[in-house]
């Protein structure tokens, strides 16, 4: 998620006009005049106020004139950028990016491991009744959908300021998003309670449990994102593990109610997480803060600039969970509930989701390289060579898709082997209530294909966001959700609930196809998009 916010602004920690000039000419080798330089400076976040405070110039235009004066000297040095990178440095960088891409799955892996070996996790328990499992599932899905946008918002905005060296602003913006996220969660909870009073879709105790988990999960997702922004993923994993330990010990040795324990543990993690986030920000402010204390942008501007990321966050999770909701709401003669958790479906998809870890890591590496190349290409190619440049990136992109596909296949195979081992030879799940039924297997196989394809869609999304074309991601995502819902609904009602997963597959297929087409379209006019970016 943080990839989206990371790439567009790699400038910060600059102390002299020369450094600023370097950055400007790095973005545009041959600006037309001082006005274009002023535009670039403003796009980098320089304001009259800041320019005056840092360099003593009257406004941005005066700074741009100063930079214009240095153009010959800078021009020379800007062309000297091309330093061949050593192979081991490159491998090290790639490995780091791969780990960054996969680390998001670490909490999920810990959670699954805890479920397998301790039969309990932070928001799941093997012996919960179907009713409680339904409530928790509703709370979980709702939390992802409603907080997904805030997670993207934090990732985007906090990174933006941190990379410029404005840790104070990053802290303020992070906490502003957290506060907004919590407020919205509370509002949604109240709305849910009211709606259930007017339309008693589920019995009140079930709604109350769903809301308890919804609020607690929202709190920890917001803390996770902040930790992720600060590159403190390991600390979060430790917190999560601690929380699981609290739940396990409390239940095993003190026989405390599982729901109470889990809620308590999640709130504990949230409080500790928020405290630590604050501490890390403060520490960074003391050590690294280079900027000056600038006011945060107007709320409406903040909302406007973050809106595409916000929508992406919410829509992405809707796409991920739409099929489950459809499957669980399939009517059976024996059920009096409008929606009822179906474990066999859930287990299949959960295990299939693991296959997304490796391709996401690979995608991180690919996107990093691609964007670095794109940035450098402005200096490598002359204006008459733009078609060659575009062609180069199109072919690079096509290769990337093949790599991702390969990674997806390898990941799916490993995932399948893991499942076979867990449910077969290892004997770990032999006497447990988790069963690998025909439905689970069917959902798992289709899920593997769908998530494999989704990896390409996610790669496309990151590329599009990096090139400031969120519209090329959001509309495919919306269409994908619609087709997912319609296909899943029809097939689940006509054939059986397990076929809702076909909806996921069709939705993801459409999403991947549309975004691939859009990426190719953008890459064929990359010069224009790079110009817009600069």
């Amino acid at each position, binding site marked *: 998620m943080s990839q989206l916010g990371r790439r567009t602004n790699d400038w910060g920690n600059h102390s002299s006009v020369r450094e600023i000039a370097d950055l400007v000419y790095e973005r545009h080798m041959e600006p037309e005049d001082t006005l274009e330089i002023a535009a670039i400076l403003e796009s980098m976040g320089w304001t009259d106020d800041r320019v005056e405070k840092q360099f003593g110039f009257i406004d941005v235009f005066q700074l741009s004139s100063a930079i214009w004066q240095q153009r010959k000297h800078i021009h020379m040095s800007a062309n000297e950028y091309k330093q061949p990178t050593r192979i081991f440095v490159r491998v090290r960088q790639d490995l780091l990016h791969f780990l960054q891409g996969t680390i998001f799955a670490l909490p999920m892996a810990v959670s699954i491991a805890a479920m397998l070996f301790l039969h309990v996790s932070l928001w799941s328990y093997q012996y919960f009744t179907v009713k409680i499992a339904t409530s928790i599932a509703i709370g979980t899905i709702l939390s992802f959908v409603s907080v997904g946008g805030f997670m993207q918002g934090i990732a985007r905005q906090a990174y933006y300021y941190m990379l410029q060296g404005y840790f104070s602003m990053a802290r303020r913006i992070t906490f502003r998003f957290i506060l907004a996220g919590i407020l919205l969660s509370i509002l949604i909870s109240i709305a849910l309670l009211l709606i259930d009073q007017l339309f008693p879709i589920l019995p009140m105790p079930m709604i109350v449990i769903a809301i308890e988990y919804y609020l607690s999960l929202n709190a920890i997702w917001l803390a996770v994102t902040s930790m992720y922004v600060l590159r403190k993923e390991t600390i979060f994993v430790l917190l999560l593990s601690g929380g699981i330990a609290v739940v396990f010990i409390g239940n095993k040795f003190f026989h405390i109610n599982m729901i109470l324990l889990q809620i308590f543990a999640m709130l504990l993690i949230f409080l500790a997480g928020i405290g630590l986030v604050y501490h890390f920000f403060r520490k960074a402010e003391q050590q690294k803060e280079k900027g000056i204390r600038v006011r945060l942008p107007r709320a*409406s501007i903040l909302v406007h600039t973050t809106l595409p990321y916000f929508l992406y966050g919410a829509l992405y999770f809707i796409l991920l969970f739409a099929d489950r909701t459809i499957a669980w709401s399939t*009517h059976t003669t024996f059920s009096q509930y409008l929606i009822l958790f179906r474990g066999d479906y859930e287990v299949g998809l959960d295990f299939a989701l693991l296959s997304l870890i490796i391709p996401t890591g690979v995608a991180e590496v690919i996107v990093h390289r691609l964007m670095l190349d794109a940035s450098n290409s402005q200096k490598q190619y002359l204006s008459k060579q733009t078609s060659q440049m575009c062609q180069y990136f199109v072919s690079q992109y096509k290769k990337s898709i093949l790599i991702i596909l390969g990674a997806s296949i390898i990941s799916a195979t490993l995932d399948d082997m893991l499942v076979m081992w867990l449910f077969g030879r290892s004997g770990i799940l032999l006497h447990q209530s988790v069963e690998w039924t025909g439905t689970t297997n069917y959902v798992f196989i289709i899920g593997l294909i769908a998530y494999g394809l989704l990896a390409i869609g996610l790669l496309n999304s990151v590329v599009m966001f990096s090139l400031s074309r969120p519209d090329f991601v959001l509309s495919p995502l919306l269409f994908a959700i619609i087709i997912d819902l319609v296909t899943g*609904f029809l097939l689940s009602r006509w054939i059986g609930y397990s076929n809702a997963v076909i909806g996921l597959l069709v939705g993801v297929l459409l999403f991947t196809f549309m975004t691939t087409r859009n990426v190719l379209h953008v890459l064929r006019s990359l010069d224009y998009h790079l110009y817009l970016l600069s």
Partner: protein
Amino acid sequence: MYSSFSNQLYHLFHYTLAFAILFLWLPKYLFIAVDGDHRDQLIANMMRMVFFSMITTYLLLVIHLYEVMSFLGVIILWNYLRNFRLSKDVVRTPGVFIALLYDLIDSPQILTNYLSELRPTIHHLRMKKTPPSWLQNFQLYSVWLTFIIVIYIHFYAAVTVAAPPLSDSYVDLAWIQYINQRFLFHDGIYPQGFYIFMDLLFKFSFINTLYIVKYTGGLDAILLMYGLYFIITSWTHRRLGALIAVIIYGILGHALLLDDYVRLAASESQEFGVVFVLPSIYFLHRYISRKQDVDLWTAFAGMCITGLVNPVSYLFEAVGCIAVAFAFIILDYRATKKELFKTLFAGVASIVVTLAPLGTGLLLGHPINQASTTFIDTGVHHITFPQLSIWDAVTLCSLVILLFTLISTRRNERSTPILSVALLGIFIFLIYYFGASVSKSEVIAVRAIDLWAYTEALVIGMTIQTIFSLLGEQSKLNIRIETGIMFLLIIVISIVHPIRPILPYRMQWNQSVEEYLSINQHYKYVGYMIVSEDYQDYDLVVGDGYFMPMKQFLHMYNPTAPTLTQYGSTRVDRNISPHIFLFYPTNIFRVNRNNAIYALLKGTYTQETNQRNQLKRWLALYRSTHKVTVYFRGSHLTIYELQETPPKKKHN
């Protein structure tokens, strides 16, 4: 308790909310607004929404996709397509909304400013509206009072008596559940419109079907009265005639309907269909005179609803539309030729829509509902003409007055409404008086009185208002006299004719129904089964729990073996619900001997007595080896609760 205030408040609230959202609020966003005041809008919207719901549900049922999500999906799609088609302005709305949102984010005080600006505007608008005179207020109070009395008469049984009214209610209960479970024509082909309407209310109100059936009966009656009030006030712009019509049908209805009067407090598809007859006649008349297509669409919706609900109500609708068409042919053919042809086309289209479910049912391989076939096939052997009452005489005189008024006065905007009502009165009277003898149909013989009674109220109300209009349109004295009559009428009626609520006959003890509701409330989500000899219990339980006839239970389960072990088996039957309730009637319910239905049920009562004795013996044996839990003990009924023998725990 069923009749407790809190219980009724809860269920009435949910029922009203579902009705208001589905049939009054949602249609605002789905259909083009008709011209006219808020009453016209409300009624047109409701008619179109009911028709839309019926067609949508039929289609979804045929393709096995009927449920809340798919229904809402169709509504969203319809709304989207409508907006897409309407204009580009609608498409720009999100942009405007987002801009407003941004302004609000930056300066939240915009909202408070807006509200403070809005307050004086509302106040100003209120001031601008001419305040009603005391006479108008007085008339309105009289109308309100009349409707309160009507609601009391027709709703009383619905909120105080737990047992469903008449035998038809049990069919309603079961058919709503069949539709809810996507079984179309479960008991054979029969128009399902009424059950679709109730099932939608059931789906969106989340209350027990029993309440839906009971409230819908009362609602139908009120809407029938409102239909009379609406058409007369819309056509005459005065209230006296409308109020008299409502009093005649709603308060003095027994004199017109005789034994069928109880139908007005029960939920009957025919009465529900008739609800839409007068409004669609009104919109059809409005279309032919004003030539706006939206009115024809509304009238067409009404025609189709009656056809999709009940054949008798469709007959009434057809006669009404023919009466309106004839009125225009006689009085204004040249100017309305085109509209009359369009009306004819709409009428033919409504026949197609009405017959579509029949065709679909036959294609799906369903037979026609047997009870309906028997009813339709029953011929009248002894042709007797109905004996005319004083009310019939008054109505016939009214018809003469209406026709005389029409001939003696110059043609004006009221001419076609007056002729339409007169023709409707004549046609329905002919059906009532000669219909059975000409057609030899039991349906006409039995049901024509219902149509005639409703028409009588309309004709008398319209005639009285026409007479008063002749005395002077806007004369203050005339209005004062009308207001005085309205007030006096209510007082006199209240004194002379005691206001008594309708209490339709029932088929079982209230206790039995109340206990079913209690069991359902507590065990619905864990599963339960009711064992009873009373087959009415099946209709109550279907869709929520399970039902087993007592006879089957006694023959199946061994009382001396572990609970719920079948004869000849050593294992406990795990394929049934874990909570079993045996209904033991200490006093078997019997309908009144004078009731026509008694003869049909006589045999069942004997059978129930035998079953009760067998159950007594079974329980005696069961008690010797088990502990029996009494779930409920009342004056007419004892309910025993059996719990499945739990499986032995496995020790590893």
